[in-house]
Each structure stands twice: as structure tokens, then as C-alpha cells.
């Protein structure tokens, strides 16, 4: 793998974000709104609970982590969609650029954009609503890494779907996190769900993170084995998503789909 082409993908995204406030705004605006809305909800719930339970870490902490995951996923797919929107596939893939270099460029872009969102969320949640996220200590690292890994995998999968199904399928990308959220127990234990939903939830790495988060807040030990399972599934998901993207890319090359993304005619 060569670093210059990866840097090229990054530089292009940097130019786009720097040159357009419309692109920069979503990096922090939506997550900030989420934190504000959920911050006030938790404040209201705390007043109802009259000190018997603190909703800030369980609800606001969960929202923050879920938004981080969603930003990672959308960071990858939005960077990919920039090439769809500017009809750039022919220019891009008629170069020595490899799929691995391209995807790595998208992933690093997503790391940068979602880091901005994470920082804004942490500042808001801590300063305004008193969330002490750092009290999670060293566990914060594996929690965020597992979410990061699965966000990357889902972003690559969403990009592959758009490549396979065409530009009009872009709308599939945005609701994907919401589609998964009932299964991963963002706000409730997996045990709350019917058996079939629990089974699906166990296949999704964020389930292990949110179960772990609730365990910490309840003062119970976090199962290292459980977190490891989540991490392994996340890594497997990244590999599977990369494989799926490569298969779709090869299909697009074989059938002329890639050429038709830009060219008026493939024949």
C-alpha cells in the first residue's frame, strides 16, 4: 500500500470541508443538538427521580456513544458519496489507486470528522450537563474502539450498497444506524428484548459496549470476555465489509456499472 494516494483521498476531503461550511456544519451540529435535547430530558428525569437515580451517565452517555458510532459510519459513507455526487469514479478508478488505498483514505477521513463531533459532544455534555465521561476510565478506550470498528464496517458496507444499487440508493445509507439501534440496546438491557431480537443483538458489536456501559454504571464488573467478543466481531465485520466492497467493485467493473456511473454509455 502506498501512502501518497491515501493522502490524496484525504486532501480532497479536506479541501471540500474547508471550502464549504455546509459540509463542516454536520460534523458537529446534529450531535450537538442531540446532546442538548437528551441533556434536558435527563435533567427532567433526574428531577422526577428526586435523587434516587442519575440518568445523566446512562442516557446521555449512551446517546454520546451512539452518536459517535453513527458519525463514524456516516463519515465513511459521506466521503464515498462525494465521489458519487461529483461523478468522479471514472477519474478515480482509472488511476493506480487500489481499493485498499481508497477505503483507507475514507476511513481516515471519517476518523478526523468524527473526532470533531466527539470533542463537541464531550465538551457540551460535560460542561452543560455534568456528564463525567472520563470516569469510565480505561474502559472508555475499548468501548470507543469497538464502536469505531463497527462504524467503519457499516460505512464500508453502506458505500458498497450505493456502488451496487446506484446513486439513487443513497437514502439507504442514512437510516442504517437507526435500523440497528433497537437490536443493540442503546437505552435498555438486551434482556428486555424478545429472544429473536437478542440473537440479532449478540451479532452486533455495539450491544457489548452498551451492556458494558450499563454494568459500569451499576457498579458491576465489565466482562472482559464479552468486550473481546464485541471487538472480534467488529474486526470480522470490517474484513467482511472490505471483502463485500471488493466483490461489488469487481462486479461493477465486470458489468460496466462503474463506467456507467460517469460515462453516458457503457456500450
Amino acid at each position: 500500500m502506498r501512502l501518497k494516494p491515501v493522502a490524496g483521498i484525504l486532501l480532497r476531503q479536506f479541501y471540500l470541508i474547508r471550502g464549504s461550511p455546509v459540509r463542516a456544519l454536520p460534523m458537529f451540529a446534529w450531535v450537538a443538538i442531540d446532546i442538548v435535547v437528551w441533556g434536558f430530558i435527563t435533567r427532567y428525569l433526574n428531577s422526577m427521580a428526586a435523587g434516587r437515580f442519575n440518568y445523566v451517565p446512562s442516557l446521555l452517555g449512551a446517546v454520546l456513544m451512539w452518536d459517535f458510532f453513527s458519525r463514524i459510519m456516516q463519515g465513511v459513507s459521506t466521503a464515498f458519496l462525494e465521489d458519487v455526487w461529483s461523478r468522479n469514479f471514472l477519474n478515480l478508478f482509472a488511476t493506480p489507486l487500489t481499493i485498499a488505498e481508497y477505503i483507507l483514505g475514507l476511513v481516515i477521513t471519517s476518523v478526523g470528522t468524527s473526532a470533531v463531533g466527539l470533542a463537541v459532544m464531550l465538551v457540551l455534555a460535560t460542561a452543560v450537563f455534568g456528564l463525567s465521561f472520563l470516569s469510565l476510565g480505561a474502559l472508555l478506550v475499548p468501548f470507543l474502539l469497538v464502536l469505531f470498528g463497527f462504524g467503519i464496517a457499516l460505512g464500508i458496507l453502506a458505500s458498497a450498497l450505493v456502488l451496487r444499487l446506484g446513486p439513487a440508493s443513497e437514502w439507504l445509507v442514512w437510516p442504517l444506524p437507526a435500523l440497528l439501534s433497537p437490536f443493540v440496546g442503546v437505552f435498555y438491557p438486551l434482556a428486555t428484548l424478545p429472544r429473536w431480537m437478542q440473537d440479532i443483538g449478540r451479532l452486533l458489536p455495539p450491544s457489548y459496549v452498551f451492556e458494558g456501559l450499563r454494568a459500569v454504571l451499576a457498579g458491576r464488573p465489565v466482562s472482559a470476555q464479552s468486550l473481546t467478543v464485541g471487538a472480534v466481531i467488529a474486526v470480522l465485520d470490517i474484513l467482511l465489509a472490505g471483502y463485500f466492497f471488493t466483490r461489488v467493485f469487481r462486479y461493477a467493473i465486470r458489468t460496466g456499472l462503474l463506467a456507467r456511473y460517469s460515462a453516458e454509455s457503457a456500450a
Partner: protein
Amino acid sequence: MYVHPPDHRADAADSDPGSGAGRPRTGAVLSVSGLHKRYPGIVAVDEVSFEVHRREVVGLLGPNGAGKTTTLNMILGVLSPTAGSVRIGGIDLAQQRARALAQANFSAVYAALPGNLTVAQNLRFFGLVYGIPGLRRRVGELLHEFDLERLRNTKCGVLSSGEQTRVALAKAVLNRPRLLLLDEPTASLDPAAAQTIRARIRALAADAGCGILWTSHNMYEVEEVCDRVLFLSHGRILLEGDPRRLPREHGAATLEELFIRLAREPLAQPLERAG
């Protein structure tokens, strides 16, 4: 003259002392052999074989739907052939895609550069993707060479057709390609701008020594620029030769007249040589 068997065409062109407008042939930068593309119910490209040599400009001509763009897409690696091979600078595209494509570049009217980046940003972006050493200097050279300095900070989406063509050509020569593919590079340009572009492209072949494969529907332009032409129809090469001599050899007054005859010719019908 009649249609050459596919596997003889490249050899025939090489050995023809008259073709290439007298320019010396030195090494094939592109070798296309038995290229075939089949879609369900249609053969888009049928056993096409040809070569492009250093300093040679080869015109790929044919009516709409003849298979020109499909052929270019297969050479660019964005469409895989059903059969056949493409070698760029001697490197097999299917086996070593990145190495082969590092030696080529292209410009096409339907593949505009991202309009939301400026001229300089686009050149830097693609320069990194191609892994160009000394990129800052190279971008500066190209901005000067293609008269783009005053437009360096202008977004490509707001440029005129002529300016966009110049940017696309600057991008196409960023990596000093051994093979340059140009799909209707002067389409939508006024005659003066088209003449300037043609002169630049001819200079590229002569000075930089790259081989150029060029598609155009402008037969005047083809006669002016191309050393050799390949007539493609229904996915097959029907005729090949010097664009300045072919019309006379086939009893046509002009290249355009010959083009029209060939476009209307039943598939693979041999053409009688005049006289």
C-alpha cells in the same frame, strides 16, 4: 482493401512504411489483443486487436455505439473484458492493474474533474493519487503550460468548456503518461480553441514521446492529428490505415465520406479497394 483478420492488424500496421505519416515506430505503449466484451444479448466489442506506439497518434473512429468508449473503458481498467488482454508499456493490466495504470492517463468529455475543487486542488489531488514526485513543481509547470495560472483558484465547475478541457488535459499529462487516451477531447470547443488543443496534443506526442489513442467524430481533425486510424463498427475493426490516404484507396472523396460509407456498411462486409 478488406478487413484484416484481428491478429494480423497490429503486425500489418507495424510493417506498413507509409502509415504513421513517416514517423519512426518505437515500441508499443499499448497492445490490445483479442479484446472482447459481451453483455447479455449483445457483443459490444468483438475480437479487437491493435497497438499504439510511442510518438504515434491513433484515431479510434466509428459511429455512435460502435464500441469506442467500451474499448477505452477496458484499456482504462474500469471495465473488464470478457476475453482478451491489454498491455500498457508491456505490463498486463489484468495482472498488474496499478503498475499498468500508472503509465496511462486519460481525458474524456463525460468524465469532468470534480467541479467543487479548484483547478490547483484538482491537480494536487490527482497528482497524489498518481504518486507524482515533486508535485508542487509539476503542478506549477502544468498551470503555466496550459495557460491556467489565472484560473488556479477557480472551481472547475464554473469554467468554460475550453478551460475545462485544458484542465482535463493538464490532469491527463500529470504523470507524464506513456499512453494517453483522449475521448473526444475537442467536443464542444470552438474552432480556434480546438485548434490550440490539437496543437498541444500533437506536441505531447512529438516532445514527450507518449502514444495517444484519440476518438473523434470530426474527420477534419482526425486527418490533421492522427498518424493512423482504426474504423470500428459493431464492435469490430473494419479498416485501418493512414487517414490521408485511406479515402483515395477506397474511392471516397474525403475521410468523412469514407466514414459514412463504413458506418452504413453491413457488418464485416469487405470493402473493395479503388482502382
